[in-house]
């Protein structure tokens, strides 16, 4: 791991301890990194940074990024608590990328794909104009090269700061998947924690095969909003990957250690 990451990842000393959010075990960061950020004691899947995700799935040295220079404007001149422009600058400074998704060419288990990975660290992986555009371009690339499209989602949904234009990205990306489908380009959608809102209700739920990480929160409405609406406590495990598999909403739950192999197996079916 780490060949793609080094140039732009924040350097954090690896001898620090991280505490597991589920079993509270203290784990060496170095060990966590080796284990793809999965707790060795309880199997809890930590949030996996965007670049680690690429490194987890892509064969070493194969990833070539597309459209890294696309950046958001502020079409609404959105005035929240912090103006959108400033929020963007802060996120860009923090993550060293321009937007909330990274797209590119890669090989997975030797098979060429177009790979897109949301970046939750960038404004909660929210989808505005750039994320929508990059997904569409990735799909177009996939069609042109006749490569399968693999998307890994971690997103809070549509980006509020771009208002209606964010909402339109649901249609725009849905339409891109429709084109994939017409061109018979396979689309594997991999959902990580969390995938909610307008991203779930568009591109993420349209995969030919939909996989999810253990324990990932997946839904349209957030659990808090649902609780407020129905005035009940939600059952344990509600909207989690295992629950959704049980309900037939997704196809399978895949442990991170098996992620690459599983995607590879599915790709071989389509290849």
């Amino acid at each position, binding site marked *: 791991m780490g060949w793609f990451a080094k140039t732009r990842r924040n350097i954090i000393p690896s001898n620090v301890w991280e505490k597991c959010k589920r079993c509270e075990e203290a784990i060496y960061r170095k060990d966590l990194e080796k284990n793809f950020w999965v707790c060795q004691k309880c199997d809890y899947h930590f949030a996996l940074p965007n670049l680690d995700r690429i490194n987890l799935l892509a064969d070493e040295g194969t990833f070539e990024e597309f459209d890294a*220079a*696309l*950046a*958001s*404007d502020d*079409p*609404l001149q*959105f*005035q*929240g*608590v912090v103006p959108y422009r400033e929020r963007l600058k802060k996120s860009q400074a923090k993550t060293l990328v*321009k937007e909330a998704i990274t797209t590119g060419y890669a090989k997975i288990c030797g098979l060429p794909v177009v790979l897109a990975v949301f970046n939750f660290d960038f404004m909660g992986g929210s989808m*505005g*104009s*750039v994320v*929508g*555009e990059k997904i*569409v371009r990735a799909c177009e690339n996939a069609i042109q090269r006749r490569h399968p499209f693999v998307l890994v989602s971690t997103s809070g949904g*549509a980006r*509020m700061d*771009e*208002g*209606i*234009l*964010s*909402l*339109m*990205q*649901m*249609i*725009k990306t*849905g*339409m891109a*998947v*429709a*084109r994939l489908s*017409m061109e018979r380009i396979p689309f594997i959608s991999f959902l990580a924690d969390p995938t909610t*809102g*307008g991203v*779930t*209700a*568009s*591109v*993420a*739920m*349209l995969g030919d095969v939909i996989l999810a990480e253990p324990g990932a929160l997946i*839904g*349209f*409405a*957030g659990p808090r*909003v*649902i609780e407020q*609406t*129905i005035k*009940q406590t*939600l059952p344990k495990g*509600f*909207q989690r990957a295992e629950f959704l598999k049980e*309900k037939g*909403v997704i196809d399978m739950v895949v442990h991170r250690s098996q992620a690459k192999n599983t995607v590879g197996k599915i790709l071989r079916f389509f290849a």
Partner: protein
Amino acid sequence: MTPTVHVLPFEQHLVELENKITELRALSESSFLDLSAEIETLTQKLNASRCETYQCLTPWQVTQIARHPQRPRTLSYLERLFHDFVELHGGRQFPDDNAIVCGLATFHGEPVVVVGHQKGKDTEDNIYRNFGMPHPEGYRKALRVMKLANKFGRPIITFVDTPGAYPGLEAEERGQAEAIARNCLEMSFFQVPVVVVIVGEGGSGGAVALGVGDAVIMLEYAIYSVISPEGCASILWKDASRAEDAATALKLTSQDLLKFGVIDEVVTEPVGGAHRDFETTAQNIEKAIAKYLALLKPMSVEELQQRRQAKYRQMGIYTDQK
């Protein structure tokens, strides 16, 4: 203006003027005093004040009109603009969803499929209609009926009026995200003209599920947004009561949407809103639908699909900092 119209907070001063005029009229009739000059002055003042109020509505005031309890609904337009309506209830998988109505009808004598969100006209009706908030089976029913139109080459007209998808337990279990996404995908490749009319609230994903069209037209005081002003305010300021500020920030009015290229046309409403003069509103919508159907119907399937794809392909504003 009938006295039974529900008055919005920012319309209060108009009602006071109206009441004063009514009083004067009554007085002049009962006392044989000639108050016509006073009545005339007040009437002029009322008209001027009305124009002023409705000409510079704030986005929050527009939101209130869009949600007005007496605002005409999908079924009002269905009855007025369409004939021979045959409602189809079967989504085939789950019980019927009354938050969405759909069926076969004729428009200007030609067969079409009509689909729309339906809010209730009073509390009881609203409970029946789930306040116009669909469950996944509603979108799936709509899709099934729209596919009929696609199969038999009939245009589709959708009416959008929903606070949003229903944030409920069953709705999630039955995959509402997938249902919304599926509608977007399927609607993008229909081979028939689709005209979308946003008549009230265009609430987020629930609206998008019926919102993919060759022509998207919007009533002047309708709103269309990624999130409700209340939802936006609670995220931004942890305070839903700042919805007014959020409504401004979200740029959710018909004029904003026209500017962003999200809609094709604003359909004007009578002074005060659609509920003040349903007939005029209905006629304006009728003209707009007829205009776009006339434009779209002669197009070949390829042209229609290419045009629709090109339209959505370019939505979004960004820069390339290469």
